[in-house]
């Protein structure tokens, strides 16, 4: 959705971390920071200076994030490079509470004068807003982490991989796709991000964290010889991850390119689906997006409370008291987990963007709504429920900002549908139980209403299932559903062997809109009698 913004904002520099106390005078002067970074006391010094300035200006709470982003993007088309950009950006943001209201200001000029100016500006901002506040902001308690450090467990830093290897890999993949007759156009790309982020707060935490992201992808378009039709296949079975270059190598673009091309060509002659009700076997390469839209978003507490009503929408899971412990989202075997701990996933982190150590929690437990996604501001809104459960009022650590220039707010963690722990049901076994159905592989078109009831999903590859067997390719398939009925129509779930972690770099929410990178793990699953439409029309 906001790929352009991502390209502009990502980014940041890995090189030259040498620094040290010798740099301090320069760093704290008016010159921009150059080499100083996480391990450099100068970075911490700047963060503390911002915190002190905010406090002195009257902030009752303040946090500062200084981040340095390095990003690389590389794109090809057929036999040529179409873009290659390396980005290295830097900046900081200060968030404060004053007069009971939030204020936020940010700047790319990372120096001692500017951090003070921006901290004061954030406080002035909060005071301007405080005049219209009716209920002051209250924050749930959190632990203090005076020297926290976390790094993504990356095997190969993508910025150390030779350019030639990246270019060669993409062009070889393109060549493989173009060997397939009918595959006329192919694009492929790689995106890499390394973000180093420091966080300090008035509550005594100072955190240093390093993140990586990698996203290789390919798109093949097949065109009919007479130009009467064209069909595409995106490599949606390769998800973006919070990993290094090892993810690109594991993606095996060259080995998969021919298959993606063949699947695009096959769509040209595939049978158009007849609209009707079908049993669906949804592979996790597809189902992650349905989970994202119909479970992960509606269980965001800011949305539930109306804070996103002007853009991302509200939620049918509202008010929380009517749903927590009461609402049956799906069958007994349905368990939905929120977590930010799975190594190599996009949401994985040591601490969130307000210094909270995230926990694992069950959003849906045995088919019933059990918990909601929270930040420090939101957790107190569920105090009654937590007291009933004998649990402390604490944030689940779901605060995130896409960059130093954006204010942090509630963003989803990895939200996963857990596989059947008792039986390793295979995709073939799920298919065997279908008389008249469709298997969908890969995510395609997606849309859902502003309270997350009515949705429509396409896919990449569609296969007809008759009497327990796949009989051939289909095209122009999309299913429409109403969230509670859809999840309650799930009658079987795959085991650990079918589990796959999908995800997106570009989940949009908030005003100004920000993107959040998130993964969703899921097994394959089967749904009964879902409404399928034909999306093909004649111009």
């Amino acid at each position, binding site marked *: 959705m906001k790929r352009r913004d991502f390209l502009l904002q990502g980014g940041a520099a890995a090189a030259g971390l040498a620094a040290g106390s010798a740099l301090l005078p320069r760093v704290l002067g008016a010159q921009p920071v150059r080499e100083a970074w996480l391990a450099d006391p100068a970075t911490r010094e700047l963060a503390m200076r911002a915190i002190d300035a905010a406090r002195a200006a009257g902030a009752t709470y303040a946090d500062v994030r200084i981040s340095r982003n390095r990003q690389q993007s590389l794109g090809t088309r057929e036999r040529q490079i179409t873009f290659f*950009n390396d980005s290295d950006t830097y900046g900081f943001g200060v968030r404060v509470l004053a007069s009971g209201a939030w204020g*936020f200001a940010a700047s790319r000029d990372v120096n001692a004068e500017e951090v003070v100016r921006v901290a004061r500006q954030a406080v002035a901002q909060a005071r*301007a807003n405080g005049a219209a506040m009716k209920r002051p902001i209250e924050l749930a308690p959190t632990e203090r982490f005076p020297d926290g450090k976390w790094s993504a467990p990356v095997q190969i830093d993508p910025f150390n991989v030779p350019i030639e290897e990246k270019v060669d890999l993409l062009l070889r993949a393109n060549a493989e796709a173009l060997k397939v007759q009918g595959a006329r156009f192919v694009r492929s790309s790689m995106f890499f991000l390394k973000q180093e982020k420091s966080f300090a707060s008035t509550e005594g935490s100072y955190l240093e964290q390093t993140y990586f992201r990698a996203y290789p992808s390919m798109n093949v378009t097949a065109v009919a010889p007479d130009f009467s039709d*064209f069909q595409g296949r995106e490599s949606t079975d390769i998800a973006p991850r919070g990993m290094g270059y090892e993810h690109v190598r594991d993606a095996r673009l060259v080995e998969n390119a021919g298959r993606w091309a063949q699947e695009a060509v096959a769509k040209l002659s595939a049978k158009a689906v007849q609209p009707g009700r079908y049993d669906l076997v949804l592979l996790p390469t597809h189902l992650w997006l349905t989970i994202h839209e119909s479970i992960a978003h509606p269980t965001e507490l800011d949305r539930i409370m109306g804070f996103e009503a002007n853009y991302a929408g509200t939620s049918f899971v*509202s008010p929380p008291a009517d749903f927590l412990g009461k609402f049956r989202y799906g069958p007994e075997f349905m368990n939905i987990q929120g977590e930010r701990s799975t190594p190599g996933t996009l949401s994985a982190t040591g601490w969130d963007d307000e210094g909270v150590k995230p926990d694992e929690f069950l959003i849906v437990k045995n088919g019933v709504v059990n918990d909601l996604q929270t930040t420090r501001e939101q957790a107190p809104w569920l105090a009654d429920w937590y007291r009933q459960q004998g649990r402390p009022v604490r944030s689940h650590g779901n605060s995130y900002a896409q960059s130093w220039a954006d204010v942090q707010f509630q963003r989803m963690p990895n939200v996963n549908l857990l596989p059947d722990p008792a039986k390793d049901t295979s995709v073939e076994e799920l298919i065997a139980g279908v008389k008249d159905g469709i298997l969908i592989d890969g995510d395609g078109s*997606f849309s859902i209403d502003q*309270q997350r009831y009515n949705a429509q999903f396409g896919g990449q590859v569609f296969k007809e299932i008759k009497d327990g067997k796949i009989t051939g390719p289909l095209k122009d398939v999309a299913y429409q559903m109403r969230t509670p009925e859809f999840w309650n129509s799930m009658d079987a779930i795959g085991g650990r062997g079918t589990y796959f972690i999908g995800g997106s770099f570009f989940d*949009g929410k908030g005003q100004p809109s920000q993107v959040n990178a998130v993964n969703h793990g899921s097994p394959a699953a089967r749904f009964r009698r879902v409404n399928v*439409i034909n999306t093909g029309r004649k111009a």
Partner: protein
Amino acid sequence: MPAKYISRDEAEAIARRTLAFTTADDARVNLQSATHGNTRFARNQVSTAGDAYDATLTVTTAFGKKTASATTNRFDEESLRSVVQTAERLARLVPEDPEYLGELGAQQYPRTSGYFESTANLTPEQRAAAVNAITRPAEAQGLISTGFLDIVTGSTAVATKKGLFAYDTSTVSNLTTTVRTPDGTGSGWAGGAANDWTRMNPAEMADRAIRKAQLSRNPRAVEPGKWTVILEPTAVANIVQLMAGSMDARQADEGRSFFSKAGGGNKIGEKFLDQRVTLVSDPASGIAPVSAFSNQGLPNRRMVWVENGVLRNLQYSRFWAQRQNREPTGFADGFEMAGGNSTIEEMIRSTERGLLVTRFWYIRAVDPRTILYTGLTRDGTFLIENGQITSAAKNLRWNESPIFMLNNVEAMSAPVRVSANESGDADGPVVVPAVKAHDFTFTSLSDAV
């Protein structure tokens, strides 16, 4: 304090310093700077607000036809030298781009009128006051208002080693609000956009959204199917702007677009929409000025994309224009659509049975062969029977294409500038009329309010 951005003199100096470091055969500098100031509100009070300043410089270097770019947001000598070195290092390593045409020399640019001090100088206090002009009347009527005010003040510059220098400034203000009823059965939206803040009227927007929220209570379910619709300007913009993304000439010529012609070529010169439909973009427009130049420094000019339903132009990059023996077109970041002389009230009076739509939501591509998209109505959908609004209607999902919709036009109003971005972020200018069209395809009902 006025918004920060890089001035013409600063931009020229930074570009010169950057280009002086390069030993490449060819080089281009793109320099963007902006202050984003925003105030967000929910539940009748400000929820977050912020001011952020950033500036980025991208340098693109080429050795022969080997080209690559690098970006930084630090402009000291060492950073500029370093970003040039990175771009050069990458350029030497990548294969030749056979389509690289080299950078442009000096160009002449049209004057734009997209910068206003009224917007650049807007303070957080003034933003909060504008928000209060919505939250207070909403609260006074027992309603819940939510919304977003986004102000962007910035500059953009392009310079090349061959002597091109282009610089422009602009301001944009965008204000939207969604007002909901406390019982959760009604929701109304209003919004607007302008380069000049003094053209914005928060109180009027509040009035519109409040009225819609009240009228939209307890919506009635209607059956999906083909409906006559009266799309308010924002809804028209939501769907008409989808065409722009499909109007690439190369995509059409290569057989991957609605604008591809069976057997080869594209549909330029063909009538494909109702004859009343005309779409243009113009850097010198008084109401919807688009940027004066592309990121390569190519001058944008007034472009007629569709004239009386006939496809007059597709977007030609420099490479594809040269290949096809045409002029490059630039890539406009907004457009204006001609309207008609009807009013929404007249459209309603002339409708036996139809739906009035305020805006669309979660619009996503379904089939590029027909520019088919899906999405939903939202925040003000009303049933029209026998020439009048008889009730609020439940929201519906549609599967439709701007091509089909703009072939079924019955009436149009005078065009207005709208906030066309789903997110409410400030964006390229879009000016459209309200449109009455028949046979708009709704495929299912939504329970969402």
